[in-house]
């Protein structure tokens, strides 16, 4: 089995990616698809800012604007940010715990394809009669009122991609529990692995309420049910609760992996172990736990009554404490360290004040009585872009630069990286800082335009200019990716020189079986410990032997494709299209048929034989 190193044609490479179950290739798929959707969502953001740059603008119409903001929010959260963090989880986490693969390689691939087809389905709405237009929160009364199929695309698309995320989460959980290398105890796991773990647990418990909410919405819109129809006894508040029981943990699903990435960067570039490791772990778990108790802070103005509002206000504020623990631990990690300002470190440093600003406005929002003023204004828009862009997007950029060599074997250009950083950083603050004031001055969010003479004009213009800077930054980064890929200068296993965790102990990119021999982990920052002892690599924990690997499979693609097809049938059956029912059935047959095939066909995988491993020219593959 040494064919994997051969050069392949385009068709073969494509087939390889369509059928792969290798976590590193799936990571690349997530990175490409998530990156693509980030560009789409970013383009939508730019359209929003153009429309709002001046009062009474008619760059886009009112209805189209609502479609754009809905798709911007939905795309960014579900199709850009989450897949991008999934990319790093897939690329790095198994390496960090010294595993040869994830627990369920097949399910991993299935998760990706479900997400991908869900995202494509959602975005096809642009070409098939209009995108969803009820906001990314899709509150029930408006969503039921919305004409056309936009909201149906939302419901079905998110359902499909949501299932993908859910099984991805289960996969990571089992991987971390069962697949750790010898000596890798829980309290020796790198923090990114820990945040992956907690995030996956959040996914496991947060996505089912969303699934139920989407199912109910689908029944109401497509099959005549009355869950949210007040005239039939229904209740729209049910949707609000289900959405936010999911929605609030969702924001921690996004931010925790970001915290994880930064927790890797600070020690690497400060050459110092993470300060307060165990309290960092504790804080991560606590944030995850508290994340389920606070969802109603998005519903302070719904009219839940003062008792509920007061309880949820106080619970929300409590989350500031573990988050603060993290902030100070990061600062103290750098304190006394030897800090090198590489591109990833730029993003990490900028993250601290940016996220801090977003976090403290979050605590301001948590003050229920005051939130009656902030809610649904640009103050909230400013808050969540500060935490999401200043936290998650910064982390994605940081992670891209940090792990690019590990994923592709070549470095991104540092100068261009810093240019991207400064453009994006300046643009980011220019865009969103002023929005706090817009909100306080009385500008509601989700308005397609505003009248002159309300004092909103200048601030909106400033905000739009900022967005242009961000756009430039992104373009520089794309350029960076292209030129460095063309040059393709190969790097060794530890290109930053200060890698601490296991992933830096193996070649970049790693061989498809990751570790020729599983490494023996002797403590936190396993690779760093070995380096400090003067060793080149890890001590193996097992003799060289056959390695068991899973087979590639086309079935994940087919299963997801089936649901994608079925969704069209489900959606158009309300229009009494004759073909709708057959399409629905065919789609489901494809999915269930593939599942059936999967379950009746034994798949024991294959073995790489010891001899082949020895044959490998020994380029540091040792452990």
């Amino acid at each position, binding site marked *: 089995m040494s064919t994997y190193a051969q050069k392949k044609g385009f068709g073969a490479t494509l087939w390889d990616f369509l059928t792969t179950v290798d976590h590193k290739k799936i990571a690349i798929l997530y990175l490409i698809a998530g990156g693509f959707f980030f560009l789409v969502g970013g383009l939508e953001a730019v359209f929003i800012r153009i429309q709002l740059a001046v009062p009474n603008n008619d760059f886009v*119409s*009112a*209805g189209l604007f*609502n479609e754009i903001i809905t798709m911007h929010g939905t795309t960014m959260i579900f199709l850009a940010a989450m897949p991008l963090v999934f990319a790093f989880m897939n690329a790095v986490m198994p390496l960090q715990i010294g595993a040869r693969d994830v627990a369920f390689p097949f399910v991993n691939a299935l998760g990706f394809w479900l997400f991908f087809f869900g995202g494509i389905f959602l975005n096809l709405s642009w070409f098939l009669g209009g995108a969803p237009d009820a906001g990314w929160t899709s*509150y029930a*009364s*408006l969503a039921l*009122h*919305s004409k056309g199929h936009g909201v149906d695309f939302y419901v079905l698309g998110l359902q499909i991609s949501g299932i993908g995320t859910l099984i991805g989460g289960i996969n990571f959980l089992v991987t971390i529990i069962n697949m750790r290398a010898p000596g890798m105890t829980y309290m020796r796991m790198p923090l990114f692995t820990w945040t992956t773990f907690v995030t996956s647990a959040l996914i496991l418990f947060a996505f089912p309420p969303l699934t139920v909410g989407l199912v109910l919405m689908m029944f109401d819109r497509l099959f005549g049910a009355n869950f949210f129809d007040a005239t039939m006894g229904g*209740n729209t*508040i049910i949707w609000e609760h289900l959405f936010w029981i999911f929605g609030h943990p969702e924001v921690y699903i996004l931010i925790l992996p970001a915290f994880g990435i930064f927790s890797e960067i600070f020690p690497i570039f400060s*050459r*110092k*172990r993470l*300060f*307060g490791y165990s*309290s960092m772990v504790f804080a991560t778990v606590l944030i995850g736990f508290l994340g389920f108790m606070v969802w109603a802070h998005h519903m302070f*103005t*719904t*009219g839940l009554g*003062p008792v509920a*509002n*007061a309880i949820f*206000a106080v619970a929300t*504020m409590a989350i*500031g*404490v573990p988050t*603060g*623990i993290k902030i*100070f631990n990061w*600062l*103290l990690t750098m*304190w*006394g*360290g*030897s*800090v090198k300002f590489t591109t990833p470190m730029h993003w990490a*440093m900028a993250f601290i*004040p940016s996220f801090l*600003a977003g976090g403290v*406005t979050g*605590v*301001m929002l*948590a003050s*229920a*009585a*005051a939130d009656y*003023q902030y809610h*649904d204004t640009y103050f909230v828009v400013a808050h969540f872009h500060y935490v999401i862009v200043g936290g998650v997007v910064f982390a994605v950029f940081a992670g891209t630069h940090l792990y690019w060599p590990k994923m592709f074997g070549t470095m991104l250009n540092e100068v261009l990286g810093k240019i991207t950083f400064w453009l994006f950083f300046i643009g980011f*603050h220019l865009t969103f*800082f002023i929005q706090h*004031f817009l909100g*306080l*001055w*009385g500008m*509601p969010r989700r*308005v397609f*335009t505003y009248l002159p003479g*309300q*004092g909103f004009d200048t601030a909106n213009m400033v905000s739009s200019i900022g967005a242009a800077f961000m756009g430039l930054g992104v373009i520089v980064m794309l350029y960076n990716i292209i030129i460095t890929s063309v040059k393709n200068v190969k790097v060794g296993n530890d290109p930053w020189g200060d890698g601490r965790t296991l992933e830096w102990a193996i070649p970049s990119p790693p061989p498809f079986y990751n570790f020729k021999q599983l490494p023996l982990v002797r403590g936190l920052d396993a690779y760093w410990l070995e380096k400090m002892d003067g060793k080149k690599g890890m001590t193996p924990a097992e003799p060289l032997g056959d390695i068991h690997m899973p087979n590639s499979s086309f079935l994940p693609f087919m299963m997801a494709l089936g649901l994608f097809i079925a969704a069209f049938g489900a959606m158009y059956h309300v229009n009494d299209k004759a073909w709708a029912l057959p399409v629905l059935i065919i789609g489901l047959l494809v999915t269930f048929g593939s599942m059936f095939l999967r379950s009746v066909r034994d798949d024991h995988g294959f073995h790489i034989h010891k001899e082949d491993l020895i044959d490998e020219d020994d380029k540091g593959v040792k452990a």
Partner: protein
Amino acid sequence: MKRLAKWRLISLFSILALVLSGCGEPYLSTLKPAGEVADTQYDLMKLSTLIMVGVIVIVAIIFVLILVRFKRRDDRIPKQVEGSHKLEIIWTAVPILLLLILAVPTVAATFKLADVSPMDKKNSKALVINVRSHLYWWDFEYPGQKIVTSQDLVVPTNEKVYFNLKSTDVKHSFWIPAVGGKLDTNTENVNKFWLEFDDKRSNEAGNVFYGKCAELCGPSHALMDFKVKAISRDKFDAWVTAMQNVKEPQKAQSAVAAQGQELFNQSCIGCHAVTPSNKMPETARLAPNLSDFGNRTRVAGVLDHNKDELKNWIRNPETYKPGNMMTGKYPEMSEEQLDALADYLMGLKVQ
């Protein structure tokens, strides 16, 4: 790092300048509170901002020290520190204290703003207004006074005004930024709260506050504005009496207007009432009540209040408020007819 420092300085100054120059417009900004509710909320904002600035300052100091002191200068490996219990206790305890300082007034204010007990009392003198939100206009019913008006809310100053909020179609949210708020109008229940309009500060704001719909409700969500006329109790009472006295639709003043009235009775009266008396059930109130239209501040909430804009509106409402419920519900009007309608409508003044 010089560049960074300089940039920070500039941004600091621009922020300061912003803060000093802009608290927004007095009729619209939450930073220019004009009543007890907004005051309470503004106090909470100030308190929380103060705490947050404190937190930011502490972090910023540490951050800057790191920037200047711990830059990599040589190849040494720093000491690998595990952590510090003392520090950990400090940065757990201090935030908890800060949050308590914020939590107590928050809870108190939350209960205070939700206290609507006077409106449920029997024989209570409290002024109650039923707000009904529609796509994309506001209906205001005064059940005690038995009158209905739309778009322009009229309230007395210096007393608590109680609101019952409900929506007739999709969810909206009722918000008067300078006076306080907001509360959603749901489709399945009545939400209640109160506001108070301060007389002195209402005067400073020109006695008219801007109100907004704060929940995405469709294409014209951005245009679902309303106005609030805050006047003294005496003037308010006079207005109520005047409204109550309009038992029959007002007679047109001129020949042209009379023609307009006739047109109106043919095409419009099915939806628009021109008497303020509260006879129709709320679900039958399909369009803004126009009895006092001549005194409105805006046409349809967003257009300037003059004949031209009024004609524009009737000519083609869709261009001004996409998705509104009036478009296409009445025959097309010629220029003359529009003039007549405009004359008639502009003459509809109760005082």
